[in-house]
């Protein structure tokens, strides 16, 4: 069964899928050492400015970031990086990697995504190396986080749909973690926000799976400005 015939996560898992599940759980866990805890994607400024001040406003902010911002864009980059890697089309992979790096709206978001991408590749190579991975990595100048995840996932034969849902859910969870530390929220409210965003994560992933690179675009001006303003924020717990 190919990936294209099985577009949804809900497909029953076979025995063969179990290692894929373990790796997704590991690679996209907050315990995986890519430094994710240090970044807020501009949420720290949004809290400072009062745009985000409770569970409801956090949910609204993140829903927009997923649907119309870096959530959707990064999802499309992940899918295209995965596809290029799967086909062994290194020229195509390099183009996707360059476009994804160019698409980042601010200096600190760039640090956030390139540092995590680099760490993801390095630890994956050290503990789960796979044929072709070194070669692909050496051909690219920089890999932002979603591209790194797409490339490593493809090198391990993990289908892009599974990988994408897991990635978007993990990113959302990390945003909520940042928001809950900053607002601050209780653990229960944080989980409620995550539960409420599940349909948004699903819809964003489903839309991204069939999107072309021309479909990419974002309209989250306030979130992008927040990540720019964060550079000069006086008291900071996060690097972005």
């Amino acid at each position, binding site marked *: 069964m190919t990936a294209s015939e099985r577009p949804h996560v809900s497909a029953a898992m076979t025995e063969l899928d179990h290692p894929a599940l373990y790796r997704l759980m590991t690679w996209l866990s907050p315990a995986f050492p*890519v430094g994710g805890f240090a970044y807020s994607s501009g949420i720290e400024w949004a809290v400072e400015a009062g745009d985000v001040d409770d569970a409801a406003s956090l949910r609204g902010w993140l829903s927009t970031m997923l649907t119309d911002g870096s959530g959707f864009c990064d999802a499309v980059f992940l899918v295209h990086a995965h596809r290029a890697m799967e086909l062994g089309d290194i020229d195509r992979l390099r183009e996707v990697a360059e476009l994804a790096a160019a698409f980042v709206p601010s200096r600190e978001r760039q640090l956030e995504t390139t540092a995590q991408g*680099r*760490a993801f*590749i*390095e630890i994956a190579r050290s503990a789960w190396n796979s044929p072709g991975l070194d070669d692909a990595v050496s051909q690219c100048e920089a890999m932002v986080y979603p591209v790194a995840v797409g490339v490593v996932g493809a090198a391990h034969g993990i289908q892009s749909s599974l990988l994408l849902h897991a990635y978007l859910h993990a990113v959302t969870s990390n945003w909520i973690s940042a928001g809950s530390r900053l607002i601050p929220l209780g653990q229960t409210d944080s989980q409620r926000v995550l539960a409420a965003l599940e349909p948004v994560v699903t819809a964003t992933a489903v839309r991204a799976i069939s999107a072309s690179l021309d479909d990419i675009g974002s309209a989250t001006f306030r979130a992008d400005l927040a990540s720019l303003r964060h550079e000069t924020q006086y*008291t*900071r717990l996060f690097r972005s």
Partner: protein
Amino acid sequence: MSRLALTRADEPMTAARVGIGGPVGSGKTALVERLIPALQTRGIDIAVITNDLVTAEDAERVRRSGLIDPERVSAVEAGACPHTVIREDPTLNIEAADELERRFPGVELILLESGGDNLASTFSRDLTDFWMFVIDVAGGDDIPRKRGPGVIRADLLVINKVDLAPHVGVDLGRMQREATEVRGGRPVLLTNCRRGEGIEAIVDLLEREVLFRK
């Protein structure tokens, strides 16, 4: 075209990475300020990483000390808990150390000062080759007896501010004996960083145990 750097635990590191941890105010930055000239005097090529929580205060203090080229001092704004960036997920510090090695290819030893933390902080072995834990007599002579992981597991325990012992009612001999006992005989050294006392013994140990020079 530049390529992605590929380094991690399984590849040789060019510089020895030495961690310095310990509670807030125990004298970690003061120790760094004493170690810099002492290491340089012995011809050791060094660089420094500081971990500040929400500012770059410690990094600025070291940069402005005039002891070292400010370019060789890297600040990692850790943000969350100081132990997270040295133990649970040291990615940011590994990145900073790799970057210093790229910029200064001859660097032999990188001092990595943690943000002030509690007695439970330890360094990941992915991050450091050797780490020391700094406590001070004014924090109380019961600290070694509490047997925190920092006190027990560090490669070297430094007891700083020994000049204050008589003023805070600490029996220094007993504190050192108890520290050595809970550490199973592994090294415990005494310093007064303000006056620069006890620093040479630390550098001797680093030369022997970390740089294998003696």
